[in-house]
Each structure stands twice: as C-alpha cells, then as structure tokens.
C-alpha cells in the first residue's frame, strides 16, 4: 500500500466514525423523549413536623387499609410498606455521636426510597421488579417467584416477604386492591394505582401535619424542588450510591 492510499482509507474511516457517532447520539436523544416531560416522582418528609404529632400512625393506617397489608404479631412475619423508626436507626451511617437525644429518638417514617439506581431490580431474576421511566420502583406480583434476592439487595429493609397467607390477617379487606399471596415479596409502589388516576399517594393524603410532600422532581417549578432549594435535606445511606428519592428535612 502506498502512502496516498493509506491516507485515503484512514480519513474515510475517520469520517465514518464521526458520522456514526452523530447518528447514534441523535437516536439516544430521541429515546430520552427529547423535550417531552418525563416525570421523576419523589417524596419529601419533614421529620420535625412529623415528630410534633406524637404517636401518630395516620400515614401507616391509610397505607395498610388501602393496600390490604396484613398484620402479624410475630415480628418475623411482619409485612410493611411504610413504618416508623428512630432517627439513630434510620440514619445509621450519619456517624454523628453528638446529636441530641431528641433528634436521635425522633420517629421517622420510612418507606421504599424508589432509588434512582435501585440494587433490588438488578438482582431480580424474573424482572418482577423494575424501575419505571417515572422513577417508581415497581413490582409485578404476578411474576414474583419469591426468591428474595431483592430483599437481600435492598439496603433499607423496604421489602417484606409473605411467609404466611396474608388473607387471614387482613382486618378490612379492600376490594379495590388485590392482596398478595404466600411466597411473594411486596413493598411500597408510591401508590402507582392512585397516581394513574391523578391522585397523590395515600400516606401523603392522610398526613394531617402536612409533613409529607409528593411530586415531580423533573419539574423545576414543583413544590418539591422549592422545598429542596429552601431547606437542608438528607437521604438515607447516600454513600451506597443508590440515590434514594425520599428526602428528609431534619
């Protein structure tokens, strides 16, 4: 091969590379919805406002009744979507030994964080759990085989397994929502069935202290974004890189 041909081939290759990169980028943009409003559902919980209502269980009660969540006296069988835990347990990696007793003992509502980078969905062998485009970490109970990999993967303890038949331990059966069956994992789905009807999650609606806020983080003018700009907020175990989308104001 002479010098002239070599330069021809190399420059042709170069042009081809640049052109294909541009085409691929264009496709990638189109796939993102390009300008179309993709939502990113998220939640903010004001722990101070919440703590003012001592021993309040309104958010949990609303969730439990609407979603047919069974109650078991034995802790090992417990099924929970939203529950309360002391600050020092909820934010176990905050590593601050000098926090006041008041904050350490504050009861914090916890639920699935609907992480941006959810480890639970990565390990599911049947794609029974996956991250929706709007950020909800969804569950398909039809498809769950009960392997419990997701429970092991979730660093927040947000997932529960039905060790027993839940039907026997549901106080008031809500006809509008299915129960689960023995051998299935369940967790909070940000009330996807209510969002689909234009409602907000049941816990947020039930909170009389207005300590819970729900909305679209991709909307720069949303209430959530304003709260996050004007207040200091923390997330659970951010160092793990799962990027939780439930923010807490302290």
């Amino acid at each position, binding site marked *: 091969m002479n010098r002239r041909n070599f330069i021809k081939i190399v420059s042709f290759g170069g042009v081809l590379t640049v052109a294909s990169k541009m085409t691929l980028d264009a496709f990638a943009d189109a796939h993102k919805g390009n300008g179309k409003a993709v939502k990113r559902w998220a939640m903010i919980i004001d722990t101070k406002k919440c703590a003012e209502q001592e021993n309040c269980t309104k958010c949990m009660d609303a969730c439990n009744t609407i979603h047919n969540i069974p109650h078991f006296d034995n802790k090992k069988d417990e099924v929970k979507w939203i529950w309360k835990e002391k600050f020092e347990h909820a934010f176990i990696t905050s590593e601050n030994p000098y926090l006041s007793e008041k904050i350490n003992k504050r009861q914090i509502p916890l639920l699935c964080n609907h992480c941006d980078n959810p480890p639970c969905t990565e390990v599911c062998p049947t794609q029974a759990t996956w991250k929706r485009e709007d950020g909800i970490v*969804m569950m*398909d*109970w039809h498809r769950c085989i009960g392997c419990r990999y997701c429970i092991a993967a979730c660093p927040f303890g947000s997932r529960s397994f039905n060790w027993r038949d839940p039907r026997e331990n549901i106080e008031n*059966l*809500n*006809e*509008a929502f*299915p129960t*689960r*069956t023995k051998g299935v994992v369940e967790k909070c789905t940000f009330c996807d069935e209510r969002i689909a009807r234009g409602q907000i999650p049941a816990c947020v609606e039930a909170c009389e202290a207005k300590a819970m806020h729900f909305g679209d983080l991709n909307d720069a003018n949303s209430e959530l974004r304003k709260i996050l700009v004007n207040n200091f907020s923390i997330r659970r175990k951010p160092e793990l890189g799962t990027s939780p989308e439930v923010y807490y104001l302290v």
Partner: protein
Amino acid sequence: MYDAGKIIFGLIIFVILFSSPIWLNLAGNPGYKPDIKYPVNEKECIAPREYMNHNHMEILNDWRDKVVRADIRFYNQNAKPFLIDGKPAEMSLTHTCLKCHSNKSEFCDRCHNFLAVKPYCWECHVTPEEVQK
C-alpha cells in the same frame, strides 16, 4: 379363531358403548352443561359473548401486562377508548369485569370447575362476594 362370531359381536358392542359419549354429543345431546348465570341488567361487555367465552383469559393476561408493566390503564378498541356507561373502561378485573359479573361462584367457578381449570387470579384479587362475607 374359535367363537369368532361371539368375539366380534362382543367387540362391536364394546366399541359402541365405549364411544357412546361421542355419538350422543354428535347427535345434539351435550349432556351436562354448566349453568352459568349471566348478569341480568347489564347489556354491555367489551366483546361478544362467544368471543369472551373462549378468549377472556387472553384478554385478562394482556390487560395485566399492560396495566402493571406498561402503566396503560384504559381499554382501547380500534384505537379508540372503550366506554362503559359513558366512562372509559379500566383494564381491571376488579373494577371492570367484576362490576357486572359480581357472582364469581355462579359465573366464573361453574365453568372453571366443569373444565377442571384452576386459575390463580383469586389468590390475590378480591371478589365482591368475599367482601360481603
């Protein structure tokens, strides 16, 4: 062959008796048929009865995947929203099917039992009958 006449005669009788259900069915006597109670006051279904009899399970599977996995909640027919009582029909066993067919034991079960199929829908989905209890 000894006693060929008796044996062949016996065989013919055996074959006729053994296949008699088939002949009776062909003769227009289907024997037992499950007595399914259709809703009395409701006239609208998402598809004709004949089609639903044979294909409701496929429709339900399709609805399940669309609602849970793709977040498509309402039923479209010929690319248009399907209306029941003027409202778009939700793709939901509980909110659409069971609203009219509220009698699972007289509707779903009778046919399923007859055909010996055991769909596991009801292990999770709640029927109106269960709530009344």
